[in-house]
């Protein structure tokens, strides 16, 4: 308390004289407390307004405008037409959906299974958790250069090819082959990102009441039945939430094609929608077209979220 009186601002502490006008005092005090509240909020609200709320609206507005030599005019759906007619447009969507689907198969199931496995161990828990999370801490650019130069080296000197050769399996050209580009990017992306999902699943698994497993075991359910009938239903909420988050994250695929495939990859095999936004905005000097593609992406992802909300709320009803 001594510090409060020693450093406090006396002018503010004393405030307006209280005893006489009680009703008026209460109202001014409420206004004053509101104002103090807004003062504390001001900095963050300005940042949100300038860097989130305003750009959101601006993006939509921009997508219907064209700026040439400093002059901005309304052009209707021209930007959308131009972007849809870009030869890479459909390839980019196809690639992005393919990546998202592959990442769902690999990147979604693997962390859950790893979490189930880790949750059973009574030893080395901390060590295994640190291991799984370690790649998450790497700057993505660093990790991707490792993959690009050492792991996906198409000659036999590359790490993956050396392993495949050692196992007498056929080697691959990785990023130089159009068919392996996407799987290679999913492997790199899963390695980099799965740690966070594993830890989240582990926390969810620890909340499952042990009695449920006991009861299932008494009923004669084996390990797989217990996973199917106890673990999955008990973690359903977090599983579906993570699926949604992962879809939104993987649909924004950008840095993997940029570094691993120099952007477009062999014959456009790596071009993603996010990369196309970047390409239009910063190389083709077409910020308006890029904004239009951003709006298309927002609509698609919004559609996903909508379907997700509908599906999950219907599940809750039944």
């Amino acid at each position, binding site marked *: *308390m001594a510090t*409060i009186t020693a450093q406090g*601002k006396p002018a503010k*502490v004393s405030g307006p004289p209280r005893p006489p006008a009680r009703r008026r005092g209460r109202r001014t005090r409420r206004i004053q407390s509101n104002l*103090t*509240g*807004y003062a*504390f909020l001001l900095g*963050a609200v300005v940042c*949100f307004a*300038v*860097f*989130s*709320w*305003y*750009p*959101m609206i*601006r*993006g939509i507005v*921009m997508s219907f405008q064209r700026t040439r030599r400093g002059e901005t005019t309304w052009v209707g759906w021209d930007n959308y037409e131009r972007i849809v007619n870009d030869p890479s447009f459909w390839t980019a969507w196809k690639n992005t959906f393919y990546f998202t689907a592959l990442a769902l198969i690999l990147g979604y199931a693997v962390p859950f299974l790893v979490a*189930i*496995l880790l949750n*059973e*161990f*009574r*030893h*080395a828990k901390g060590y295994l958790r*640190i291991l*799984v*999370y*370690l*790649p998450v*801490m*790497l*700057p*993505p*650019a660093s990790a991707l*250069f*490792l993959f690009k130069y*050492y*792991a996906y080296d198409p000659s036999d*000197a590359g*790490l993956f090819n*050396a392993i495949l*050769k050692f196992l007498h399996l056929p080697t691959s050209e990785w990023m130089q082959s159009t068919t392996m580009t996407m799987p290679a990017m999913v492997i790199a992306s899963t*390695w980099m990102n799965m740690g966070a999902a594993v830890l989240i699943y582990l*926390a*969810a698994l620890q909340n499952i009441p042990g*009695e449920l*497993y*006991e009861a299932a*075991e008494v009923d004669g359910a084996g390990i797989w039945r217990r996973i199917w009938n106890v673990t999955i239903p008990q973690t359903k909420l977090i599983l579906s939430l993570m699926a949604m988050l992962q879809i939104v994250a993987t649909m*924004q695929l*950008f840095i993997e094609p940029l570094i691993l495939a120099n952007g477009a990859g062999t014959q456009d095999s790596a071009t993603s929608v996010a990369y196309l936004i*970047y390409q239009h905005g910063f190389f083709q000097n077409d*910020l308006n077209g890029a*904004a239009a593609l*951003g709006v298309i992406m*927002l609509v698609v992802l919004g559609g996903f*979220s909508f379907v997700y909300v509908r599906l999950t709320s219907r599940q809750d009803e039944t």
Partner: protein
Amino acid sequence: MTRTLISSAQMRRGRGKYMYWTLLTVVIVVFTLVFVGPLYWMVTGALKSGQEIAQTPPTLWPEDPRLTNYTDAWHQLDLAKLLFNTFYYAAGALVFQLVLDTAAAYALSKLRPAFGNVILALMLATLMIPAMVLIIPQYVTVIDLPILHVNLLDSPLALWLPAVANAFNIFLLKRFFDSIPEEIMSAAIMDGATPLRTLWSIILPMSRPILGVVSIFAVTAVWKDFLWPKLVMPSPETRTVSVGIYAFSGGTPMNVVVAAAVIAAIPTIVFFLIFQKSIMSGLTAGSLKG
């Protein structure tokens, strides 16, 4: 120890015990290879010469380990400068987020001005918007700020101010402040403490764990970010380390690029090993109960 899929008793008995230890050993070995192996490959690979790295089959340990790739990376890419820039941006983002986001969360949780819930909802709504969708209009905003008409390109503010607009951090902080009993607040007000003093002397000292989590998120976010700093910090003098390595990767031998990537990763790895407890607990605290 709570009961999991397989009971502890079963794991301690005969065959179960044997299975458990075999599986544990296999998992430890495989996980070490999968998650540390590539890092080992990266660090030792950058110690090899240009010829050795192209050799088949690759060598497990460099025949003639040399630091030249690392020293070349350090000098050619001016890594000292790049690392300093990144530290500086991370520190600034941390300060801005701690001050402004804490103040905002405190207002939303304890001062609760009128329409506070609306503001919170608008902030949380930004979590639903994918970052890539906003990248173009955000860039346009930064090169010509509304009303002020200032160009923030190459100014650290272009990284610091957008970092403040982080609804997740505000949400984490607000939820923690919500758990601080109201009586403590009213007692402080009875004693004549101003809201600022209450925040500083009472709320913040009680909130160290969550402030730690938010700080770690703030620092790692800057260190890992790529596209945004690439766009708003275009000059060679202002680049972050990831962007700098990318910019040099075209005309630089690959071993030197990887050596630079190793150096860029060291601070985050050290940071992680020091703070791993709070990082991992913070991750699950934020995601589960939300």
